[in-house]
Structures are given as C-alpha cells and as structure tokens.
C-alpha cells in the first residue's frame, strides 16, 4: 500500500534581489531554495501512518521541477520517505498550480496510492490550490487545511479535522482514496539523523518525463495554466518609521511609546 506526498521546492528571496529582464519573475540567482515548510508536516503525517500500520506501507515523495529539486527530495528520503520521484520537462516552465496539478495527478494515477497528501500551500507563492486541483483531475474526494487525521492505510474512510478561521475546528468523515492538504502543526516533524541523511544520499531519485506520463507539452506550461504572469514588481510598501540610535536609546523610545499609550488610555 502506498501513500503519496506531493512536495515543492520553494524559493525565498535574497536581500537586494532584482526582477528578471522580462519583468515576469525574480532573477533566479537571488532565489534561496528549500523544501516547503508545509511539506515537512505532510511527509511526517505519512511516515507516522506508515510506522503505526501493521501492513507494509510505502511512502513516496514526489515533486515537479528541475534537477536541483533532488536536494529537497533527498531531504524527504532522509526524513522517512521510501521512494522519491521527480518530473521535469522544459515545457513545464511557467506552469501555474493547475498545470502542476495535472502532472501530479498523472503520477498519482501511475502509482495508485491509498492516499495523497499535499501541503495546504507553499511558503513562496501561497496559492493554496495545487493539492485540491490535483484531486479534481483524479476525481477523488478532497479536503483542505487538515489539522488532525485519523486514518489506517487501506481504510474506506478517514476522520479528520479542518482548521477553520478564528480558532474553530470542524470534524468530518471522508471517503478514501482522497487528497488531503495538511496544515502546519498537525504533528511535530522529525529531524533527519546523520545516518539517514547519508543513506538518503545513496538512494536513487526516479525521474519521469511528460511522455511517460502520457501528457503533452500543451497540458503544462502557460498553455496548460489557468493564469499567466504578466508582470512582477516590487510593491510600494508603506514603511515603518525606523527608531534609530543604540539599543538603550531604541528601548527608551519604545518605552515612551508605551507610556504615551498608557497616558492616553487612562
């Protein structure tokens, strides 16, 4: 039995980044890449289920992206994934969450898992869309922002709690296989041990092409997307008035602000 975990390598921006010449993305040299924070939690959830199961469960981490994404997939292998799959083709460049979901769905069909997890959203683009769009292409039941899950591999249904706004949860039952997007805090992700990092380095990362997934170039990239980036630019941000001086002076100014507030409040 398999549990698939869709992961993304996200990018944070280095200081003093610049926008690419075509104005549609940040210059790639300013991108600092890492595994998406949410994916740490969805992977851990899958690994926990595997460890608690009586029957063998295979946890498979998979991602869409160029070879540098292998680094994030190795992190998943080190944290308990049994296999890792990466899909890439130059035609995928410029894909939005819908186009990426088409690829994730194709991999999922090929692996036929009992459950598919994805993060609620990515820390860089925060679409909160890819996992649920994947469910649509699969025709699977789906739930977003799962903060608690009770599921035994192979079960016909699972019980979960959705984390709603304002400190409210909602419990629900869902038919399986399903796509669940996993929220931060659902578990405590483990750290990879040195030994597991070493072992992960030696494991193969399977690669798949669009052809192997029966996808055409038009299914991905801008042609397969529901939106297209026109322009990326630095916002005209309102900036805080910076309090200058040494630490003592800064703290004194802050104390004044507090006293002004208290004076006004009393």
């Amino acid at each position, binding site marked *: 039995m398999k549990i698939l975990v869709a992961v993304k390598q996200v*990018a944070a*921006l280095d200081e003093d980044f610049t926008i690419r010449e075509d104005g549609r993305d*940040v210059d790639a040299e300013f991108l600092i890449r890492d595994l998406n924070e949410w994916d740490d939690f969805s992977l851990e959830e899958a690994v926990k289920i595997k460890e608690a199961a009586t029957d063998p469960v295979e946890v498979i981490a998979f991602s869409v992206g160029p070879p540098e994404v292998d680094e994030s997939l190795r992190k998943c292998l080190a944290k308990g994934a049994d296999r890792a799959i990466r899909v890439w083709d130059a035609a995928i460049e410029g894909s*939005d969450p*819908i186009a990426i*979901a*088409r690829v994730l769905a194709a991999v999922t069909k090929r692996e036929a898992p009992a459950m598919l997890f994805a993060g*609620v959203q990515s820390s*860089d*683009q*925060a*679409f*909160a869309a890819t*996992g*649920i*769009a994947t469910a*649509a*292409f699969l025709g699977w*039941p*789906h*739930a*977003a*922002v799962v903060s608690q899950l009770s599921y035994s591999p192979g079960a016909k249904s699972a019980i979960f*709690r*959705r*984390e*709603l*706004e*304002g*400190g*409210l*949860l*909602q*419990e*629900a*039952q*869902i038919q399986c296989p399903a796509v669940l*997007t996993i929220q931060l805090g659902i578990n405590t992700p483990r750290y990879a041990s040195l030994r597991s990092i070493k072992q992960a380095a030696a494991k193969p990362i399977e690669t798949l092409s669009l052809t192997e997934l029966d996808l055409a170039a038009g299914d991905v990239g801008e042609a397969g997307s*529901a*939106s*297209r*980036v*026109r*322009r*990326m630019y*630095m*916002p005209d941000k*309102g*900036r*805080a008035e910076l*309090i200058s001086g040494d*630490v003592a002076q*800064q*703290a*004194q*100014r*802050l104390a004044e*602000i*507090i006293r002004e507030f208290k004076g006004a*409040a009393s």
Partner: protein
Amino acid sequence: MSGVLIIAEQRRGELRPVSLELIGAAQSLRGSSGEVAVAVIGSAPERLTDALAFQGVDEILTVKVTMAEFDPDTFEAAVGALINERHPDVVMVAHSVDSFGYAAALAAKLELGFATDVFKVERIDGELVATRGGYGQKVNVEVDFAGRTTVLLAMRGNVYKAPEQRASPRLSAFAAPPTSSRTTPREFIELSSGDDVDIAAAEFILTIGRGIGEEAKVAQFRELADAIGATLGCSRPIADAGWLPKSRQVGQSGKTASACKLYIAMGVSGAIQHLAGMKHVATIVAVNSDAEASIFGVAKYGIVGDIFEIAEELRRCF
C-alpha cells in the same frame, strides 16, 4: 448573464463578514462587467438574503442544498451549475479555508481562469488583471487569463470595504443539482482556551514570534509583558510548538486583536496570516533583526535589531 457572480460564505447559519467585502471588491469591476449577483448556498439560504441586501448587489440567488455546512462536493456542483447556466465573466469567492477546499478543483474541472489570494482586480485595455503577492509577499504579481471566458478569483480578506448602504436587490431561487457528497461534515469544535487570556479584548499586546528561537526564552517575554502591562500574544510557530497556548495566537486561524491599540511584535516576520489578525491596529511597533521582514510593511515604528537586547533594555525602563 456576464457580470460578476459572488459566492457568499456562511458558517453555522451566519454570514461570514468577508462575503460583504466581496461585494466591495466587485465594485472595482462595475461598468466593465455587467451585473453583480450574490449566491447563498446552504440548507436555509433564504435566511441570509437580508444580510446581503446592500447597494452594489443587483440580484441575490438562493441555492438550497441538503448540507447545512460547507462540503466541497456540494459547493463544486452548485457553483459549477451556476457558472454553466449564467456564464459570469468573473466569479469571486473569499480566499478562505472553505474556498481552499473547492475553488481550485472547480477551476481545474471547468477550465476557468483562476487566481487566489487576489488583493487587486482591474481591467487593463479590456483584459482582466488580478494582482497577488509572490515570494512571501515580497513582490506583487500581476496575472491575466488569456482565452478564458470565466475567471474564478479567490479574494483576500480585509482588503475591500463592505458596502454600508442598504438596498433591495431582486431575489431569485436557483435549483442546485443533486449531489452525493463524499465528505460528511460532523461537529464544530471550539479550541479550548488553555488559559484565560482574551486576545480579542486586549488593548495592549506584546507578541513574540519565531525569532525567540527556543522555549526557554518565553519566560523572559512573559515577564516583560507583565512589567509593561501588556497581554502576551504569539504567532503561529510558537503555538504550534506548544510554547504558548493556542488562545494566545494572533492571526487568521487564531484570534484577531480586535480591541488592540498598541501592538509590539518581537521576532515576528509578518506572514500574511498573522497580519490578518493585527494589521488594523493603530500603533504597531515591530522589532526584528531582518530589515526586510514583512512586519515592517504594516508597522508604524520599527526597530531593526536583536529582540533580546531590546527586551532587556526595555525591561530596565519599567
């Protein structure tokens, strides 16, 4: 119909306020798109029509379904049927936990143009353009939807003003297609408060974030909050780690600092979900070692520096 179709959001029989903000958002397309219709989907939608009778709404559509509470299959079927029958140019939903559960699936199935967390929408030379944030809100991203006849936009909350002027839009009932839901909602659970703090009522909040680094440091800030007379709050990572109870978490999934007048954020980067709970506060002071942290974008005053040094010095002032 062309025009804008808004999907109102409700929970436990109450309209969620963001539904009215969507009416505000739709006004930015008035003139270029046709009418504005608001659909209420639920087991008793007629109960909420009055709460939606505002200027800027031409029509309220009641869509009666079996499920009293949100479930993705019901909403996909109902909104899908509305789109197929009415052919709106733009469909607006809130960028919320409910829409996370169905909007992307609907966009994928019906091949809609689609963007989430949109905070600006306009027509440029007749073309619909939506703006959202990218790379942790460090950049703005304009997207368009070439060749899509209907575009589904999930709009960010706390951006658009809800209308104030009451009006009497026409009412129509829309027959939703029968659906068999694969998800069965059960009960709601209120997070137990953990302690008796009331973030929503606090006028002065000192919030700590990921920047405090380790649990052992919490005590220092708790003591500082007491000394300066502030309520101690936190951002998500602190609550998730169990260093402070969830009841002290400020933000979308936590509490809104509704009554707050002075908000000091120490070591909080300013994720959009956190800002949702506090950016309205009149006086925000941000202390962070990262000069690029988003929190400085909403703060009135900023200190770029070490939160522990500032905290120690500040403690001496009281």
